[in-house]
């Protein structure tokens, strides 16, 4: 393969058979997000081996896989927090390709920022801004990136803080919130940017087990009201209940794609089977 041909020309996006738009998606609809053949090398380490995904409007998809399988790297490649070695990402009409030789300059950076405005991200470690109050955390980017009026941004933020059940924490600082509350603020912060798709990177993995439920409930509500979401998670019950489609990642590739009833309950792929059987035995011991 020639490295001189641009990634966009080399890669043609192909739908996985399971990625047909659901019955609720309009026939004329375009996918919100298309990632094509995303590959990532960390030095000699081949972390992603060409993974593709298609997400239609209103869908919630979950990415499962053991730790080290590359699922977080894949998610972080979708908004270029991780610069992939190869592949193309398109979100809501904005396309950015891998640029491993850094031939493109400022124009690509601007396009990546444009892409990021369409994709809100929720991190495992929350990453709230500790020097800003809850409401300031939410309006910081709408005001200083989108140029929105502060009052308008605050109105939107308050609406989302109400949705995550934290209206009364509006003027608190993150250090005074529990982990579950912090993660819900992080979700409100992402929503205040009014993105087309929400990316969740193991949003409950850093939480005390007693606090996981409140975050998953907010996420399930968002899924049911038709938000487009991509969730990297270990929460099988959430994936089963909320996902339209589940992707099982193994060694940097999607080993199995399908509805949760298939991938979680009756997987075809032997690797998926083995992973899930471990989960079941663990679950049985509880």
């Amino acid at each position, binding site marked *: 393969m020639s490295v001189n041909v641009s990634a966009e020309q080399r890669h043609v996006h192909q739908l996985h058979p399971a990625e047909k738009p659901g019955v609720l998606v309009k026939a004329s609809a375009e996918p919100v997000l298309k990632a094509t053949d995303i590959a990532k090398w960390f030095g000699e380490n081949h972390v992603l081996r060409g993974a593709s995904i298609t997400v239609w409007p209103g869908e919630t998809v979950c990415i499962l896989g053991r730790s080290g399988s590359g699922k977080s790297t894949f998610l972080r490649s979708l*908004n270029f*927090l991780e610069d992939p070695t190869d592949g193309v990402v398109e979100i809501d009409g904005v396309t950015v390709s891998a640029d491993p030789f850094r031939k493109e300059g400022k124009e690509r*950076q601007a396009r990546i*920022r*444009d892409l*990021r*405005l369409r*994709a*809100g*991200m929720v*991190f495992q*470690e929350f*990453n*709230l*801004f*500790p*020097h800003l*109050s809850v409401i300031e955390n939410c309006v*910081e*980017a709408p005001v*200083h*990136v*989108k140029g929105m009026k502060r009052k308008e941004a605050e109105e939107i933020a308050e609406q989302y803080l109400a949705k995550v059940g934290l209206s009364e924490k*509006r*003027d*608190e*600082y993150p*250090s*005074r919130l529990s982990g579950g509350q912090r993660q819900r603020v992080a979700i409100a*912060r*992402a929503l205040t*940017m009014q993105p087309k798709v929400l990316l969740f990177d193991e949003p409950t993995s850093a939480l005390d087990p007693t606090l996981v439920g409140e975050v998953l409930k907010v996420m399930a509500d968002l899924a049911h009201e038709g938000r487009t979401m991509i969730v990297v998670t270990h929460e099988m019950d959430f994936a089963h209940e909320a996902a339209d489609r589940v992707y099982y990642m193994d060694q940097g590739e999607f080993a199995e794609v399908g509805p949760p009833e298939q991938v979680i309950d009756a997987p075809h792929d032997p690797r998926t089977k083995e992973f899930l059987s471990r989960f079941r035995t663990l679950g049985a011991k509880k």
Partner: protein
Amino acid sequence: MEQDARALAQAVAVDEARRASRWQLRFRLGWGILIALLAGFVLISLNVEIDFIARATPFILEGIWITLIVSAASIVLATLLAAIGALGRLSSNAIINAIASFYVSFFRGTPLILQLLVWYLALPQVGLIFDPIYCAIGALGMNYGAYMTEIFRAGIQAVPLGQREAAAALGMSSRTAFLRIVAPQAFRIIVPAIGNDFVAMLKDSALASTVALQEIVWRARNVGQKEFKTLQTFIIAAMIYWALTIIFSGFQNRIERRLAAGDRNKESKG
């Protein structure tokens, strides 16, 4: 049983408080003895002449202003240079990074007194003549700026990577992310260090006596040497520096505590 346990807890608390107050008492006693010894050394064994000290002290005290002005101006210069230097050290541009690291290496790698003498004695050779006070400010500011560059850089790098990632994921440019997210957090780490360096600068400004700047040490030496009483005048100078550092360390502690409590204060309002 409950009452027994409570009585035991109270007895333990009383005993702990008694031990703590006795420790304090001994600590203060230790300080008192050392101060008395120092004062005794000064007063008794040194053939004190009250009228000489009364004459010399006001003269030496006048140097405080020069010391404070030089220290303050130098710390401002050093802070500016350190801010620029730290951005340079963190720049992805190789040339800018080279300039910044060269600055840090050179000014940390040569003696401060030599740098000061270059300003005062060597630069006039190439036609650059500065007042002693500007020599002192220039030399101290550039030297401290080099040390503080590394402190500022470390402060900026101490802000977790996740903060930059969250800012980037929200669509912020690296410039916006730095100004709005990273810098305010780095500031809290850096400010105590600036205070620390200001206290150090108060003492290092004594080096300016070598370029005939009439600060505390210069005055102590001149007034002392005339009557062969430098032991007395240097002790006076030492007491002045000591008092200054105690006062400014106190300020610095308060700033540090306020910064640490910043969030809590704001929160209690909300």
